[in-house]
């Protein structure tokens, strides 16, 4: 069987993927594309470890068929750092100890990123709701919330946005 070619943009790079379109996006990102920052926690949309950004929205990549990303823009945790510098979100996560084992962290970062696209000045409640789909067994979440709050404050104080923050 020949597979259709899927044209998409992943971490700002135009990519053509030629795989079985019924495989999950999570599987293809981790395997053929080597983006192992995307984690498989449950594989069924319950834990959020696999969250990536698809067309500016957080999605569970384990619930997206790779064929469905045709003409879409995907952002994974590997796409956050720019020119050797950590994204402010990553910087704040590190400063605030917003992770311990780190397994949930890529998904947390992407859910937080997606929130800050839509809402650059979220309340604590809004942050908690945005990460409601990201389970963490280590941190009890509060440091994650603080990291997101400080990121939004930093971006606003420096008149930067979640997507354009360097330079």
């Amino acid at each position: 069987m020949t597979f259709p070619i899927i044209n998409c943009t992943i971490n700002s790079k135009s990519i053509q993927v030629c795989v079985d379109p019924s495989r999950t996006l999570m599987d293809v990102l981790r395997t053929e594309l080597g983006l192992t920052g995307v984690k498989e926690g449950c594989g069924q949309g319950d834990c959020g470890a696999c969250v990536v950004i698809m067309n500016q929205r957080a999605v569970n990549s384990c619930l997206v068929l790779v064929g469905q990303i045709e003409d879409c823009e995907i952002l994974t945790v590997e796409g956050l750092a720019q020119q050797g510098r950590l994204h402010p979100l990553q910087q704040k996560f590190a400063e605030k100890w917003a992770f311990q084992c780190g397994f949930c962290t890529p998904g947390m970062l992407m859910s937080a990123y997606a929130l800050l696209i839509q809402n650059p000045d979220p309340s604590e409640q809004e942050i908690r709701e945005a990460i409601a789909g990201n389970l963490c067994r280590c941190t009890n979440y509060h440091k994650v919330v603080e990291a997101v709050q400080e990121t939004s404050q930093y971006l606003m104080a420096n008149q930067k946005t979640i997507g354009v923050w360097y330079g």
Partner: protein
Amino acid sequence: MQVFVPKTIAEALNILQDLREKAKIIAGGTDLIPHMRAGSIQFNSLVDIRLLKLSYIREETGYIAIGSNTTHSDILNSCIIQQNYSALHQACQQIAAPPVRNRGTIGGNLANASPAADTAPAFLVHNASVIAESTRGVKNISLDEFFRSPGKTALDPDELIVEVHIPVPEKHTSSAFVKMGKRNAMAIAVASAATQITLDSDGRISEARIALGSVAPTPIRATEAEAQLIGRLIDTQAIASIEYAVNNAARPISDIRASAEYRNQIIFILVKRALLRALEHQNAFIVSE
């Protein structure tokens, strides 16, 4: 697994007619893909409806038409829904979590026909109907007749939900949806209740709709309780008076989430909360005896 991506509804319907039970329609995939992963599937093809332009919320004369591929997040972003269909808005708010709401669709939620489907009680009190198409034509199915048993609907295997219609509510109508889960998010409902109340110029209830989720093989209306509210002034007595009828309508089972006894215990409380929440909107105040 073969994946078809039809570019028109006609193309989709032809594929479904050819393959029938061997094909499953995939929209957001939030229910379907976990089923596929669990291996408990009898189909070998998928029909992806993403190119069929079924993602919209349109004002028509006398009703709103919601495309079946409209996501729960799209519903939350809709001012029309937020202002006029609180039960549906609140139901979508309480589904899972943002990444699931960004992909899951209202068509999929109804077609999957879980007894715990969150949008179902809301759509039931909003008097919804499902518009389904096949190569044989178009069907308009009242949601009251749509759910047959857990996971089974009135749809034929080759039918595709294209739209859900909800009539424009009368004046002085308000609604609400309340859900009890084992946690605040990412929880399948242990029990849920939706209400829609219309008041006449004397403040008496002229229309009442009450729907219950997760307490029967399908989402259901508590029609006996509804009838008992008609013509009454809303007060604590009126609400208390329907407890027996609500409990009679519920026939829950025990499962991994809760016992039947617990569900029986809480369902009227949820209905009461949903009634009070709906009535808050109308600045109606409850006269206590």
